[in-house]
């Protein structure tokens, strides 16, 4: 069985107090609790503070480009669907630069688990607004406040019939771990939007700000009721719900591809002599 020590990576270069630490802790705990060995998981990340996440772990890693996390994760999963594939991204990374990929990864419903470190700001580039920054937030490059409407990733995902949609909070690590434990065995694409304060650049959405608003979704809530889920996803402001907001049982991409039925693509042998017969088809 794996231990926390097995998952120990580089010393994080995040700011002291960064919301990412809680996510890292919840993730390691989840892996250990699920008994997943480091070589059985591949973490794919992009660029931003979240992009560094896999370096602070020990596991197979593809740290690619800003916004391109999901296409790489999709390719990895299609080539080896027995591998657990986790995509880690930031709000700018996934909802901004990679927005198109998010839409289509949800549509495909490939079993990739997307954990978005959502701090409602750009940290690595030092404080520009992200797609989830609240309207009116003043930044260096938005001196009159953000004009654009705040993106609601959960409502977007539900509209696309995403098969697993949840929100976590780094300040509630136990609950976040439960969400991860739920998302990982889920068949199909899973999105967890994780509220995570940027202690250096986001002076609005602080630990305190979140703590005053977040609440765990009440027991008895049915995440399979899409209309209620949509209403739940629209809650933002005085009260912000945490938990599994929506889930369904849509067919899963890797199970629909006949070629992948018996064995992962990466283990399927290739017989070069077959080409002789194919050449004959050109006569």
């Amino acid at each position: 069985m794996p231990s926390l020590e097995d998952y120990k990576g580089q010393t994080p270069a995040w700011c002291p107090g960064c919301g990412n630490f809680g996510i890292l802790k919840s993730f390691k705990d989840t892996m250990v609790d699920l008994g997943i060995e480091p070589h059985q998981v591949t973490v794919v990340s992009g660029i931003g503070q979240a992009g560094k996440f896999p370096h602070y772990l020990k596991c197979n890693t593809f740290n690619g480009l800003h916004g391109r996390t999901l296409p790489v994760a999709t390719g990895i999963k299609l080539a080896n669907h027995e591998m657990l594939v986790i995509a880690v991204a930031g709000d700018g990374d996934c909802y901004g630069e990679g927005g198109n990929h998010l839409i289509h990864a949800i549509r495909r419903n490939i079993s990739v688990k997307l954990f978005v470190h959502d701090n409602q700001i750009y940290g690595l580039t030092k404080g520009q607004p992200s797609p989830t920054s609240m309207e009116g937030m003043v930044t260096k490059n938005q001196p009159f406040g953000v004009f654009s409407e705040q993106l609601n990733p959960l409502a977007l995902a539900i509209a696309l019939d995403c098969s697993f949609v949840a929100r976590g909070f780094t300040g509630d690590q136990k609950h976040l771990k439960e969400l991860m434990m739920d998302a990982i065995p889920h068949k199909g694409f899973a999105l967890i939007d994780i509220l995570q304060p940027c202690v250096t650049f986001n002076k609005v959405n602080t630990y305190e700000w979140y703590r005053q608003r977040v609440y765990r979704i009440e027991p008895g809530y049915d995440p399979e009721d899409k209309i209620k889920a949509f209403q739940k996803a629209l809650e933002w402001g005085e009260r912000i719900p945490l938990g599994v907001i929506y889930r369904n049982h849509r067919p899963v991409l890797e199970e629909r591809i006949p070629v992948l039925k018996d064995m992962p693509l990466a283990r399927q042998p290739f017989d070069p002599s077959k080409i002789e017969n194919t050449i004959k088809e050109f006569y």
Partner: protein
Amino acid sequence: MDYSIKIGGEAGQGIQTIGDTLAKVFSRAGYHVFTHQDYESRIRGGHNFFQIRFSEKPITASRERIDIIVAFDKESITLHENELSENGLIIYDSSALKQKYEKPQFLDIPFVELAVQQGNKIMANTVATGAVLGMLRLDLDIFNGIMHDTFSKKGEDVVQANLNVAKAGFDFALQNCPKCIFIPSSFGEPKMLISGIEGIALGALASGCKFYSAYPMTPSTGIMNYLAGKGKEYGIVVEQAEDEISAINMALGASFSGVRAMTGTAGGGFALMVEGLSLAGMTETPIVIALGQRPAPATGLPTRTEQGDLLFAIHAAHGEFPRVVFAPGTPEQALYLTNKAFDLAEKFQVPVFVIFDQYLADSGWTYDRLDATKIRFNDYRIRGDAFKKLKDYKRHAFTETGVSPLGVPGDSESLVVTDSDEHDEEGHIIEDSGTRVKMVQKRLLKKLPLIRQEIAQPYLYGGNDPDIVLVCWGSLYGVVREVVDIMAKDKKIAMLHFSEIYPFPYYLGLLKNAHLTVCIEQNATGQFARLFRAETGYTFTHSINRYDGRPFTVENLMGELHAFFGRL
């Protein structure tokens, strides 16, 4: 015997079906065949044509002189009548074109009426196919076999209906064409008929490609269609991506995961992939990119041909890393060079390009056979037990050759880590200058000379002591070769064809003693000539550039060349 047939009409009239069927009849009859297509970027209407040349001697290009024009629209007549050979004929259906042509070279065949009499008017193009075969006095047996192969899945009725209408066209031409004096030579052993795009796709199949992701874009889409059709038999996943950025990143993910992966696009789509190309360079992830050039900038002439992206392919992407660029000249080269692309991509863990254009993609060539034993397949990845036994694995380990072991994630407890940031041997992010320098040496400087050794010299065709050397690359192989054949009768002339272009194979050889060296390219600025000068310091004496989106023909290239010969 050397006949050319042009089938012209609007998009949606079945021009390609007639062309494909006739070409197949001729190749099965054992003739050498060359086909090319000219079409507009539309689903219906416009004017398109399909041209077929066939001969008992090897042929590698189209001629301008046409023996039979099959006209489904008036443009086929107004635009191409002057291309007719001395004994050439135009067949058309006066009721469909709503015009009667009284000149002696016209033969009015009621395609539609014969089709209706025998079944259905949608089979008018099968009547035309039969009529052409009747004009050539080519027995319908081979045609009938092709109809069985094509339609037997749809039922015997469909097969028989097609045979009947073709026979009606055949008989009509036989009875009403006293001027048809075509004399085809006797049949030989059947030949295979393959297009450039099929050559690339077949090369991917033969190389064990298991993952292909792309966004549809002319002229590359044929690769995706072909591989999707073979997916089940060969175990290939074909994924249509939401955009080209995703396409290349998916392919890189699949390659990282342990399978041979490829993507394909045209110049505009490749522009979106450029960031991912750099990612392949940094993460040393093998990938093959098929890049179909077409006239640009921007959308340009989407369905036409150009060689305008050579320097783009060579220079694209931020940063410095090794790459390989191949530009096949024939479907056969497309097959073997795509295979070599997969081999080198994995051997050196670098991106490799197969660049082509619409002309090569859509041109059909015949071969007696393609030799499958020339296909290389070495699995350079470290899998299964071999990976399990490997101690202290580091994905980007420093080695003598710069090539680090490429482990398949999950096959061993060893972890496979890579990063778009500069990284250490394990693959983890770093900032220090010492590691950076060693990584650049490993990734780029150590590999480059080894890759260079794999690149073949250009192909010389013609005499060893030429006064005139025609230099070309990629799809111009066929037309330049035919020009050399013709001109060699009274001149010392040779062709130098480059298909393995980058790293550049240093060559001066015969150029130094030649009086006239002409670089022929399908672009406006002479990109290959510039590359040649940059790499060797040598400047060609002349250049011929065509950039109207149409391919060179033997006649128009000869015309351009004759303009230079006064200077010899």
